[in-house]
């Protein structure tokens, strides 16, 4: 993930680096093998593009009747989702805003919860933890990344939301904050709040891993120089390590956000699935991947087109996030330097 600044070796250097004085037959084979290998690589590389293009075109094509009826803007901003039962035309009303809102809200909250925690864990592992603890700590965080979604979903459903999140939510709703619409009760077990929390746990490992790598890339000389000038540990972390790694942190965050946007199963179980939205934290809403997964199996044909339209929208959002991440990283690393994320 973290690239060094050395330029890629060009094809010409590769060829020149061959064995000019080698045996004739072997060289003849190499001459034939080279273009074949090149062809294989081209096919491999272009297959990604082809698969991607096929997916986009196919889903957009299938979803087109829905876009045509609702209009692109109408589909994205419409607040009503009432499915029809037709096999040949679009008879229902399809406004995907409640799902778009839900996806953006829980992803943003998850980032808000996970990024500070990830930076904290990474700093602790790299800078503060005693040497014997670093390995186990790293493994533990990496193990979190390997747990399948369904396990997160079940643990969230049968444990966390009952004994941790809902009680915390009730404390917030009963506090003076509860007077604000956003924090008002009643606190439901399945809500934006529960979904955001499970997402935060799920994206924590990848952000932590990247932060750790990026922090480890800071030139030791700069750190030593800061210490030599009398900086405390806290000051070194705050003034040297974190600013230096800003673009890396942004990159890691965007990877986490990508996962959060697309996470299906755990969100489907915990978000509340109500096809409505409200600017409240403890309200049961829905998210784009979750509504697809939940309603797909029993949907009438026209509802399936509408679900594909949500899929296309989700794809577009993911692309926007990626491009935005790229732009931020390029801008910021130009200004601050430091480990860049590709």
């Amino acid at each position: 993930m973290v690239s060094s600044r050395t330029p890629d070796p060009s094809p010409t250097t590769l060829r020149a680096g061959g064995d000019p004085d080698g045996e004739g037959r072997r060289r003849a084979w190499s001459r034939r093998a080279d273009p074949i290998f090149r062809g294989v690589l081209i096919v491999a590389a272009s297959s990604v593009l082809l698969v991607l293009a096929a997916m986009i075109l196919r889903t957009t094509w299938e979803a087109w009747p829905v876009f045509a009826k609702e209009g692109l803007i109408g589909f994205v901003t419409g607040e009503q989702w009432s499915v029809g039962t037709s096999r040949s035309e679009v008879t229902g009303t399809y406004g995907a805003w409640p799902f778009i809102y839900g996806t953006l809200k829980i992803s943003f909250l998850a980032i808000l919860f996970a990024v500070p925690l990830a930076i904290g864990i990474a700093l602790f592992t790299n800078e503060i933890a005693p040497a014997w603890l670093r390995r186990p700590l790293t493994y533990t965080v990496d193990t979190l990344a390997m747990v399948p979604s369904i396990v997160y979903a079940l643990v969230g459903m049968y444990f966390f939301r009952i004994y941790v999140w809902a009680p915390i939510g009730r404390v917030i709703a009963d506090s003076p904050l509860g007077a604000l619409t956003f924090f008002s009760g009643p606190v439901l077990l399945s809500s934006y709040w529960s979904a955001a929390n499970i997402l935060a746990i799920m994206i924590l490992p990848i952000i932590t891993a990247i932060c750790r790598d990026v922090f480890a890339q800071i030139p030791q000389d700069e750190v030593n120089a800061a210490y030599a000038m009398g900086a405390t540990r806290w000051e070194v972390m705050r003034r040297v390590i974190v600013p230096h790694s800003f673009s890396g942190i942004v990159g890691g965050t965007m990877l986490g956000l990508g996962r959060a946007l697309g996470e299906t199963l755990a969100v489907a179980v915990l978000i509340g699935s109500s096809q409505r939205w409200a600017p409240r934290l403890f309200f049961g809403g829905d998210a784009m991947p979750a509504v697809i997964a939940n309603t797909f199996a029993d949907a009438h044909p026209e509802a399936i087109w509408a679900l594909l339209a949500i899929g296309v929208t989700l794809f577009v959002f993911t692309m926007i996030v990626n491009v935005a991440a790229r732009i931020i990283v390029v801008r910021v690393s130009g200004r601050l330097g430091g480990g860049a994320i590709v």
Partner: protein
Amino acid sequence: MRSFSTKAAAALLAFSLLAAACGGDDAAGDPTAASNGGDAQETDDNPDVGGDGVSADRADLLGAGATFITPVMLEWIRDNEPGIAVNYQSIGSGGGIAQFLEETVDFGSTERYLTDEEVADAREIRGCDAIHIPDAFGGVVPAYNNPALDAALQAAGQDSLVLTGEVIADIFMTNVSQWDDPSIAALNPGVDLPGGDIIPVHRSDGSGTTYIFVRYLADVSQEWNDTIGYGSEVDWPAGTIGGNGNEGVAAEVQQQPGAMGYLSIAYAIENDITMASVINADGNAVYPTVASVSEGPSSIIDTIPDDFRYDILGVGGDGFPIVGTHWVLAWECGYDDDVASSLQDFLRWVVTEGDDLAVDLLYSPVTGSFEARVLGQIDRINAAE
């Protein structure tokens, strides 16, 4: 090739189910049993294992559709006396209808009848009718989680909470949002109702259970009919939450204090979730049981049209009012003779002899005068040229 391996799979499935049953386990409706059978088909090369004596004019059947019927369907497949090997894919009513209309299965299975458009399409696809064959009924019950209310009911000496369709509709429209609402108190006089929010819980997936429930609410509540309507997936009001499948709703109801959801009756009984009685069209408060669910369809037998596309509404007498039908979909023409006779034999056995298995698993079987009419439907399979 398919029929060859499905026979082996079905025979093995029957064998493994039988073995499990003998072992004292309740294998009924165990989805892993089905997948075991599926796995076994890869390894087994002897199609005659199980010795079910399949004769030359028998064919193996492939069906797909509703998950609602799966537990009893597996039992029927295991125990059916004609010995027909059936491979049933539990993929949901929508998928069952789609596969049936694509002619990739011998029969479809669904909790909702075909729409007019689907009926017309079916006629175009094969040039004859798709036949609706009811094989079981299922009640959909209001189930809730409110221990304080249960204690109050017990103190008042009342067996169960009594609700009307209108009040249930109001609860799910969030018009009635408190457990001590006057409309609930009026139906349960003498019960000291505790307060607290009612959290309505619905299915988040499209579902025949939803269809049965909201079809009933649309029938008894004009406001529901005007604002929400009915379908296997509806636009639920804000403030409700959804759970995926019966198990999702059950989990939500069991964990969320103050929740009220709707469940397939078998699910509510098996999970010991508190159910409410509902007042039917004759003004009787009826508690959901397998017997009271069976009453409903019999009471409306005379109003059922010849094409068997119907909703069960206006149930009176001792019948529990929220009831739906499970249909098998079959074609009126175009089967090979052996497939048609196997399908008829299997369905006849299910409708006439399969009742006990259904009752054991809390389904309400097709009985009496209803049964006679259903047998007439089965006779239509492959009858048209």
